[in-house]
């Protein structure tokens, strides 16, 4: 009996061992290597691993383009995560009303998720292309004009004050369906009795949502937050396909700048520095969630 348990333990460890080793080497090992490279002097094609301290990080933070990309990342993350959550929740609430063509609407809202960011980028590049007075408006601007809302026309991603906001619009369009699907499942999981009880106690619909539904959906909100957050912080292919760095780097993001710095300017060590900075930012987002969910698991 004891032998069988021992054998099971050994077997389970053996089963996990290959994956664990692979992750140890390819994830944690490479993180360690990248961290070391970011402190090294490797800024030409030939690798140079001599230690130079935080010089690369200092140079990065003195680079105006890098600071712009950090600002863009903050704006994009805020808009994208917030916008997707709000829009996804609203769509889920509307679909939860047991309307007739619910399956059809659900499919339509979910379809963008199946596209790659490259396709989304190209499509929205055309849609948000403002056109010009000489060649005429195109895309959304043309639509606004035809609807008599011409005063709402803007330069979208050609306007440096808007820039990354246009990219966020495309990203929200793609991912809000995913959030909607998650919330829909969550809403279906809330027993109707709870809502009935709240109504009996005299709560308005809005209060029901605020005090009953939303708190119960908190785990879903967290899950969506994590997924959206990590997509947002690593955003790269959408920027490449849709706008490029944009006027005055108003659409630039750290991942794009890192690629250009590493493979165009040969500044491998500085590129590694950006990668580590991104890792730290992602950790700030994920680690509290991991601790929270681990604590909850222990409690239950």
């Amino acid at each position, binding site marked *: 009996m004891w032998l069988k348990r021992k054998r099971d333990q050994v077997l389970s460890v053996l089963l996990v061992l290959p994956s664990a080793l692979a992750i140890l080497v390819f994830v944690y090992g490479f993180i360690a290597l990248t961290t070391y490279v970011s402190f090294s002097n490797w*800024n*030409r*094609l*030939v*690798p140079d691993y001599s230690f130079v301290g935080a010089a690369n990080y200092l140079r990065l933070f003195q680079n*105006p*383009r890098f600071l712009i990309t950090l600002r863009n990342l903050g704006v994009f993350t805020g808009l994208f995560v917030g916008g997707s959550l709000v829009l996804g929740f609203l769509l889920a609430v509307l679909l939860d009303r047991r309307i007739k063509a619910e399956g059809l609407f659900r499919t339509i809202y979910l379809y963008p998720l199946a596209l790659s960011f490259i396709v989304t980028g190209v499509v929205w*590049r055309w849609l948000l*292309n*403002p*056109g*010009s*007075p*000489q*060649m005429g408006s195109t895309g959304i601007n043309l639509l606004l004009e035809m609807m008599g809302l011409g005063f709402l026309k803007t*330069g979208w*991603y*050609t306007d*440096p004050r808007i820039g990354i906001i246009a990219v966020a619009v495309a990203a929200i369009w793609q991912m809000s369906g995913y959030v909607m699907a998650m919330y829909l499942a969550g809403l279906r999981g809330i027993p109707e009795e709870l809502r009935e009880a709240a109504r009996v106690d005299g709560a308005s619909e809005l209060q029901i949502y605020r005090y009953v539904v939303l708190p119960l959906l908190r785990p879903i909100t967290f899950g969506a937050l994590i997924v959206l957050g990590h997509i947002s912080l690593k955003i790269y292919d959408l920027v490449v396909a849709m*706008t*490029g*760095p*944009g*006027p*005055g*780097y*108003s659409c630039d993001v750290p991942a794009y700048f890192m*690629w*250009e*710095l590493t*493979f*165009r*300017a*040969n*500044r491998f060590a500085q590129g590694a520095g950006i990668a580590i900075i991104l890792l730290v930012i992602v950790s700030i987002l994920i680690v509290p969630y991991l601790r929270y969910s681990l604590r909850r698991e222990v409690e239950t």
Partner: protein
Amino acid sequence: MRKVVWFLAVLVVVGLLGWAQAGTPLVLDKPSSLADISLKVFGDSAYAPAIMRATNSKALVDHSFARISRLDEILPAGAKLWVPDAAWAKAFLAVWDPNRVEDLFGGGKLVVGSWWTAGGEAEGLEALFALYRESFPDVVIVNATVAGGAGFVFKAVLKPRLIAGDPPDTFQLHAGLEVEGYSPEVYLRPLDDLYAIFGWDKVFPPDLLDLMRYEGHYWGVPVNIHRSNVLWYNKEIFAKYGLKPPANWDEFFQICEVLKEKGIVPITLANAGGWEAPHLFETILASTLTPEEYRGLWTGTTPWTHPGVTQALEILKKILDYVNPDYSAHTWDTVLEYIAAGRGAMNVMGDWAMGWFMAKGVDVGWAPVPGTKGVFVALSDTFAFPKRASNPINVIGWLAVCGSKEGQIAFNMRKGSIPARTDITPEEKAQFNPYLQSCMEDWARDAIVPSVMHGAAAPESWVVDFKDAINLFLVTKDVAGTQAALVAAAKAALGK
């Protein structure tokens, strides 16, 4: 259609001229060793390995030739050998590593890396391949192109392969300081000996040879020359309003004022790729500085605080008042639609724009960028020779084709650039279109300065800093701040 006929005619003439004959057959009348044969034909027994390789290559395709398995083999009477021409044999000796016995047996591949995937440039590359196959039918050519504007993606693919020791056998490299980004002293083979053997140091113009030299060596063989400082203009609009191409910036801005009132975009600009606007700026720099001062910017003899730089920034700032507002949504080719549709009048772009206009059937006018008459801002595509190429002997033939007159004419007629060689005869020149002919004349007599955005004037890290500074300027229009950024970029690159 006429172009196709001309191209085929050139190919036939070239074929007859003897590219198919990179040597001569030799039938032995008595048993001899390779050393003896080499002594008899070349006057030096050292060329034995070259003869062995050439014969084995021929034998793969034509079984009447002897298959030689050892360098010291005594070949029987009646054996048919292929004696390569002297230049190739010398080059073979220069390149061949005696430890690589496999190189004596012919065949193998030639992996050619480039970013020429579109239209005329892909056809030009195919023309070079065709010429190569005539001389070296035993080699399999692998066309390892990677699509992506201006080699952006290709370079990202190439660099890790260079570091890993698995590069393509040859790859496209811009002439000039772009080679610095490949750490050539570690990864590339210097080509000085091949330049001497094939006579390239006599047939390329001295200004281009200066550009090709880095750390005292040549690293690539140029196939073409492109010009960066060309002003393209819509002939109909100019005729309608009685305008002439501007010779200086004052005339240019007068024309802009006239056109702006008429609701036409005076000067169209693109910047989706991030490089088109800095391209415009480099041509403005070529107009506010003398050629020596411009070259000095990149070597450190001209400080970036020079008033010519300030003046260039002011001119760019003024130009921004006359450009199409959606410039950051356009790449260099999509913005030319303005000119094709008659809604925009002028554009500054390199002469690859001519290829676009020809494809659209637009009869476009051209002139040097205002203030740059007599200055040729040049860039050139070359092919390099990595040290760890898997098929080094096959690369010799490729570089020979690229540097040959036949190769350059065949390639450039398709690509829309001009040959780098100076020995093109007037009859051969007449095959090119009128713009290219005028370009060749300018190339022969203008002052040649290197383009920065296309890899000639500065190493890539500096090019990226320069590009970033100008891109920010487009929005901030801060002359002093941008000039300071350019000074800092120069300091970072030159280490002063």
